């Protein structure tokens, strides 16, 4: 049985406890990388990461890109959207098509 998790700074992720997510807090890149690895090893199929935290550990997140599980999905943190999630979509379109055709 798989679980879902949220990783980010304390204020952004606390609310997700109410929805039955596993919650991991991280304020710096080391904690974030460790937490992400731990969550991935503990059968979390979907890990939502706040954009602020994800920006600290781009390499760690890239590792999971080509694996079907876990899906590491960026969500906006408490500070609002940074546009990283959208940029990722554009990025994969560019990789696949060779040009950004979504405007």
């Amino acid at each position, binding site marked *: 049985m798989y679980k879902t998790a949220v990783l980010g700074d304390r204020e952004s992720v*606390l609310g997700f406890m109410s929805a*039955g997510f596993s919650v991991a807090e991280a304020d710096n890149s080391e904690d974030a990388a460790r937490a992400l690895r731990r969550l991935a090893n503990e059968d979390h199929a979907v890990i939502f990461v706040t954009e602020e935290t994800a920006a600290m550990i781009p390499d760690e997140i890239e590792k999971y890109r080509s694996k079907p599980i876990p899906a590491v999905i960026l969500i906006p943190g408490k500070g609002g959207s940074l546009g990283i999630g*959208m940029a990722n979509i554009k990025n994969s379109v560019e990789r696949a098509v060779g040009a950004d055709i979504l405007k």
Partner: protein
Amino acid sequence: MEIRVNPTRMELKRLKTRLATAKRGHKLLKDKRDELMKQFLDLVRENKELRIKVEEGMKEVHVGFTAAAATSSPELLEEAIMLPKRQGELDVGYRNLMSVNVPVFSFDIKDADRAGGVNYGFASTSGELDAAVIRISELMPYMMRLAEVEKSSQLLADEIERTRRRVNALEYIMIPQLETGIKSIIMKLDENERGNTTRLMKVKDMMLKAALESKRADDDIPAEE
């Protein structure tokens, strides 16, 4: 770069077979790439819509929680949401999308109750918290779908990139190489053939000349006697 080959008929036949295979593979891969692209574009459009929706929703949730945190003490807040009644359980299946295995997440919420996930006393917490908690549970299906679609589109993007490389390798390297190989063998064989013909003609000339001379010699001898 070209392939070095022995200019023999056997080698020519082998190269021709390889060329035919390469051309068939190229056509198949091109079809695969086109179909992948079609699927990918559909997915990516849905991905974009879902992301906009989820990001909007998240903004509301954060506003709600910030408001709740402002009106009640952090300990109380944590206590209220720490023990969810609902346990999220996630089932992961796989779907084969153009020979790419993509995950399918089905999230089912146990003990889903009428209050939409609010399972704490209302006395000590603020109304903003209730709203935020309800909003999160409303958002859940979209978040799960977003996870599924975004993962699928990432996996497809990788597969498209790989397929495109293979198509290009076949189209611009493999097939031209085989074609020049075949061409050079044919040229060489033709050249040999021409060389052989001229040699034969030459030999025939020489033989004729020799025959003529010996005949003349034969004719000359009796005349002297």
